[in-house]
């Protein structure tokens, strides 16, 4: 008669593609200049930054780069002197571009493969928030074929189609102890796809200023058949049926950008970008399990993101014909309102600074290196849903290197 009801256990996986997951690392030349590139023309990375500008590229490009990302987050639970830190794991955002067209033609074709969203966060299985999240490995790889057309000497347009291949691997502890007192484990692992597009226009004004305007569409990514793996004490396994699948849909938001390029003298380029990211599409995160039990219900967690803005600026100084020095920085507002901050990417307003060096190794070959430091403002939060309460502080260090061949 002592009826046991385990349904109090609401297992709510957290998964928020927040600003923290927007990986602004799409080209070493551009990173060096504060990740500007909408309103200026540097290399094949324009396929990402402004498909409208590609037709204006004086040469054809094949290039690739990688930006190992060190994400270092610290959590101080409220009322304690504990410092919980993420493990040293290195995410590897990369980019690959090709832009080609006949010499002196009015059109160019482009192809881009890049990682605009992703995250690798590992808090371990002993920290305060282990029942919220232990680790998350999230990747989104965009494939983008593009065409760009020069309408006149001063204006070109372009657009591309985006196919996204996304994957997620999330682990969290389940607060059900086995006979030796160890908690259970949940792992949600799967991959899915989404589609989108982007377009841009690039203008050279008579005043010598260049202007770019782009729109990158929302890419709604669905994971239809992820594996939901639950390790719980044997007597409760029937409440967490195995094997089990989950499905989930996440809208990767649209981004609107305007960028400007200024050329005060032949050695200098100054660039300015403004982005508005439409995070407000992200209202709810739902996980739908194929097999439900009273203990394992579908979850619907409020996210209620707001639109975010980022401001970026940068400069390039051509010290020699074969050597360019770059620097830049920016500010990005957070999309995550108070009460919704979660540990997989503890988001906050952020500032960042960048440095870059470009070296032309041979007539057709550029070597570019970049370094970015991001600082997320310290943020003290109590999450509405998990009541996890404490202060997050995050720094990100991103070195990067790329090679570009052009002809």
């Amino acid at each position, binding site marked *: *008669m*002592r*009826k*046991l*009801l*385990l*349904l*109090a*256990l*609401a297992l*709510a996986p957290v998964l928020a593609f927040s600003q923290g997951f927007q990986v602004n690392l799409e080209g070493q030349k551009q990173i060096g200049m504060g990740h500007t590139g909408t309103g200026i023309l540097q290399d094949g990375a324009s396929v990402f930054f402004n498909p409208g500008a590609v037709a204006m590229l004086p040469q054809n490009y094949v290039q690739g780069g990688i930006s*190992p990302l*060190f994400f*270092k*987050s*610290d*959590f*101080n*639970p*409220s*009322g*304690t*002197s*504990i*410092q919980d*830190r993420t493990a*040293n794991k290195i995410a590897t955002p990369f980019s690959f571009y090709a832009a080609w067209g006949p010499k002196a033609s009015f059109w160019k074709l482009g192809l881009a493969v890049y990682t605009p969203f992703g995250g690798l966060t590992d808090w371990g299985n*002993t*920290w*305060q*928030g*282990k*029942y*919220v999240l232990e680790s998350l490995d999230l990747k989104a790889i965009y494939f983008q074929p593009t065409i760009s057309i020069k309408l006149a000497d001063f204006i070109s347009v372009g657009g591309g189609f985006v196919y996204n291949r996304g994957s997620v691997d999330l682990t*969290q*502890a389940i*607060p*059900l*102890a*086995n*006979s*030796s*007192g160890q*908690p259970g484990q949940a792992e949600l692992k799967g991959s899915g796809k989404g589609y989108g597009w982007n377009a841009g226009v690039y203008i050279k004004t008579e005043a010598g200023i260049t202007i770019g305007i782009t729109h990158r569409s929302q890419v709604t990514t669905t994971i239809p058949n992820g594996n939901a793996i639950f390790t*719980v*004490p*044997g*007597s*409760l396994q029937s409440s967490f049926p195995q094997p089990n699948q989950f499905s989930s849909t996440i809208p990767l938001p649209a981004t609107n950008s305007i960028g400007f390029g200024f050329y005060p003298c032949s050695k200098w380029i100054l660039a300015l970008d403004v982005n508005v990211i439409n995070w407000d599409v992200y209202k709810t995160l739902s996980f739908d399990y194929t097999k439900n039990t009273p203990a394992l219900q579908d979850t619907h967690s409020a996210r209620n993101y707001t639109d975010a803005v980022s401001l970026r600026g940068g400069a390039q100084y051509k010290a020699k014909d074969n050597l360019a020095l770059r620097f830049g920085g920016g500010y990005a507002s957070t999309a995550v309102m108070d009460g919704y901050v979660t540990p997989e990417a503890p988001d906050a307003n952020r500032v960042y600074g960048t440095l870059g060096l470009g070296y032309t190794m041979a007539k057709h070959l550029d070597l570019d290196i970049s370094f970015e430091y991001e600082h997320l403002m*310290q943020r003290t939060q109590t999450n509405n*849903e*998990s*009541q*996890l309460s404490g*202060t997050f*502080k*995050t*720094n990100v*260090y991103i*070195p990067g290197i790329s090679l570009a061949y052009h002809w």
Partner: protein
Amino acid sequence: MKTFKQHIYIIAGLLLLGACKPEVNTPKPYHGSADFTRYISIGNSLTAGYADGGLYLDGQLNSYPSIIAKQMQSVGGGAFTQPLFGADQANGSGYLSLTGFNPDGTPITTPVTTNLAVRGIQPIPGFGNVVLYTKYTGNINNYGVPGIKLLHIVYAPYGNLNGYYERLLPGNSPANSTTYLDFVTAKPFTFFSNWLGNNDALGYATSGGAGDVLTPKDQFSQLYGLLISKMTANGQKGVVGTIPDVTSVPYFNTVTVGAVLGAVQKANPTVKALYINALVSGATYAPRAATAKDLIILTFPTGKIGQPVVTPYGTLPYGLTPVTPIDNQYVLDENEVALTESYVSSYNETIKSIAAAKGLAVFDAFTFLNNIKLHGLVVNGVSLNSGYISGGIFSLDGVHLTPRGYAIVANEFIKAINAKYGSSIPLANVSDYRGVKFP
């Protein structure tokens, strides 16, 4: 060679990146106006770390005073020694373990009877048999004694009647005559926690109002005053806990009248009600139909319902007629609940007013556990409530707490201490502590 050197620099640079750690600056832990050099805890089973219907090593190691003491280390707290059972007798008094579930989802609990610390049985004339446990010799900071009431603290023969107390005393039952109050105050201390008083109401309630009596309100108040005067005689500071509403524990809320009646009606739809022997007033009891306001205890053997009972009116089913009501010991009926609540409320007034007069911190366990019963509690992503087993806070006996429950209570005590004395004892990490163990 040159490129090799460059690589070295790059690798060294990357390693340096790996070394820079963000750090949230926290205020240095501070003891405030309290002195935690020698902290002692007094109280009953909850203080001793009793869980799953027994006192055993794992429960002792997760007692709330031991958790508080661990957190006090950073603000000048000294060593905290508990009267632990030895590793070879780790199961102490024995306890219940969850060994599975019946097909209907009800849990199966099995007593653990190996590696006990039982030393013998001492018959006490006029009282009964007292189970004696292996003696503990050594320092004691945690004076929690399962079963003790505030009523017993100045009762000299108590060291012969309670095996858990006898175990801490140098002498053997039945020759002891040290009162609990003298025992705990024999050595100097600088800070104390006191959570005595639960059993003065709970003893009556868990026996369905049949096997024990409520400590009279004026006696409670007199003894509590005496206790606190003695504990603060040398200006010691401390924290006290109020007494939880007995109806906030799963012991009284798991086997409900509705659930039992529903099960009976499934087998026999003509049954209209369960009958209990209920308190009318004073010491007068009369049978009546049970309502949802009558609380059946967790350990009621539901199989008794409907069993034939021979009466002067013929053979009648147990619990289903006014002639064969459920025994009083299994039910805390509505009037008994009200009576208990009025005593608990009076006890708590006493506790709060004496604590206020002496400038002590108060953990209001009554309000805290009632809030959990009404609204649940979410801690670090874990949903908790007052439910039996699934709730995560209460252990298998339905009254005492799991390690997770004790950690939550320890944090509430710490918050009360910090608020009163301006200290900053860091809170414990509740996520490190488990709920009920499942097979």
